[in-house]
């Protein structure tokens, strides 16, 4: 044993845990009874998201259930990470439509350019965050899946103040 270990005597009032424990319990009790509780009971309670939250996509549809997309090719062109695949085709009535429309949500950075560039307001980002999947393939949303989504669509800008001034 080293010879010069200094042993400091501490008064009992300082070294007792009783007072500190009582203080901690009082804080706990105060928070337990406080009306400003922060803990959220997810998934029973869900977070309320801002209207401009940018989450996974959703495709708008016509009244008859057809996707509004006209397969113009602007979203794959503007997409900075190339996560949109589009193959245009002609339907029986000679209209242009998307024969294949797939968004890889894993690759997507949720910039919202696709929604901004869409001339027919078909593709939208969504106010949505619950995206757990069992496989990576499920993260590639095809047109059918995009149409099925039911969450709110993102408001990229405030209609009252489109330039954010």
């Amino acid at each position, binding site marked *: 044993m080293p010879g010069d270990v200094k042993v400091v005597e501490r008064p009992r009032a300082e070294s007792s845990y009783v007072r500190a424990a009582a203080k901690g319990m009082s804080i706990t009790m105060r928070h337990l009874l406080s009306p400003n509780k922060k803990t959220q009971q997810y998934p029973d309670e869900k977070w309320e998201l801002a209207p401009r939250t940018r989450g996974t996509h959703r495709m708008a549809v016509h009244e008859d259930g057809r996707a509004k997309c*006209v*397969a*113009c*090719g*602007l979203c794959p*062109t503007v997409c900075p990470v190339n996560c949109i695949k589009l193959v*245009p*085709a*002609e339907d029986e009535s*000679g209209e*242009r439509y998307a024969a294949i429309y797939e968004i890889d949500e894993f690759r997507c950075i949720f910039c919202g350019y696709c929604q901004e560039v869409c*001339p*027919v307001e078909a593709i939208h980002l969504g106010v949505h965050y619950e995206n757990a999947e069992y496989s990576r393939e499920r993260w590639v949303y095809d047109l059918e899946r995009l149409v099925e989504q039911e969450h709110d669509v993102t408001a990229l800008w405030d209609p009252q103040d489109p330039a954010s001034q």
Partner: protein
Amino acid sequence: MAENGAKATVTLEIDGVEVTVPSGTRVIEAAEHVGVVVPRYCYHPGIPTRPAQCRMCLVEVEGRPKLEPSCTLQAADDMVVNTASDTARTARQSVIEFLLVNHPLDCPICDAAGQCMLQDYAYVTNQLESRVDEPKRIMGRDRISDDILYFADRCVICTRCVRFMRDVAEDDSLIVAQRGDKAYIDTFPGRELDNPFQGNIVDVCPVGALVHEDFVFKARSWDMDAAASVCPGCPTGCNVTIDTKENQIVRVKPRHNAAVNSWWMCDYGRKHLVMTNRGVRAELPLIRAGGGDGDGGELRPVDWATALDWVAEKIGTLGAPGGSAVVSPDASNENLFYLRTLLDRLGVGDADFRVPQGETAELPTVPTLKLRADRAANAIGAGFFGGRSVDGPPNGSAGGALVVLDDELEGAGEDFGASADFFLYLGTRLPGAARNADAVLPIATFAEMDGTFTNFEGRVQRFHQALRPPGLARPAWMVLSRVLARLGDGEAVDDVRGAFERMAAQAPAFAGLTWDGIGLKGAPAAGSAAEAAGVAGSAEAGA
């Protein structure tokens, strides 16, 4: 102006720049000499008639009370033209506003978007809003011929298509029906649009009103890559641009060359060019090296180094010189040159080629542009390199070496090449007649490589790579130069310049030509009809 002196040139001022042009030049063309492109719809340099009806090219000329259409206005001495004055710009903006009154603005689904003169001019004139409250008239679309669609709502009634058919093709099959905002393009009552050159009306259309049916909704203009090429359909060698998307040809458009095809090409050429690059292709080198040494066994796929080593070794051990060869008249000059070098080494004389025949078609006002009966891109070039035109099925019964370059061997029997000592097949495809081959080397089509063709009058024209070759297929000049290099003859070339340089140094017909000197407009081969006729070659390329 009253005096009628035969002055060769006139000097005028356009947008503050003085320019001297040949007398008789229109102001719209003179403006291009100073780099000013006056907006235009009805004017097209290849169509002789200028109705000045679109009112888009109006320019201000000092001393004249009203704006003048520059497409019909002859340049004159001391004329001071202002193409961008406030008056001229306002007039242009008004024209655009009128054109947009009934235009559907369906740019997102229009095939011309991105290459549309209405889009461009609406943008530059800053015509953003419409003052019209009335609903737009809707006319829908029509099939104007068996392969061309007409979207009437998009049409600006410039009548380029009508005038191309009437004044260039001399076929009065198209008319403007109705008047005013109800006007549309239609076939003349009781007539059909059925002309071998009708595809050009799609190319002259400044907007997306006329679209080839096989291009509808295929590709946006910004998705496509373009490559300058030459049509291989017939010996005319029309200069074309190949538009590709994701390694597929989606469109073929004529490229201007005053000495060959002017601004046009025929419909056969468009279809033929696409078809030659479709279908199942040979993608891997195959050699018949048995389990032991020598012949026998199945053709089996190997890598290029193994295949080339094996082929060179077999050629090196061949006995007496002699043999035969079948070549395709669609092969490029470089391919034929390297093949000839190899054939000379093997002691093979004439290389047989067969030229399929087809119907001819002429464009009356452009004498150099014809769909010629010979359906081969480079029969003249094949002639330069010891080719011999033959009829009937290919002859593959001789002994010695047998080399086939990209001929599909139609009509060849089951035993084609069976008695040859060594049967080398270089092809883009693998026809049944190649079953007896000792080695099959996959090669690229003309659209998958750089090279040159020699057209009917001896004009050597460059074409450039538009597609990636499938699998391990490579240009034949690249392959053959490697076979020769292994035999101690020259070096392996990777660049078409190297191949062309060697050809120019060794083949008298190409003496003096260089890859860069040929340019995109072509140059006559030595001793050819084109040279004798003094056809404007590289001199015209800069114009």
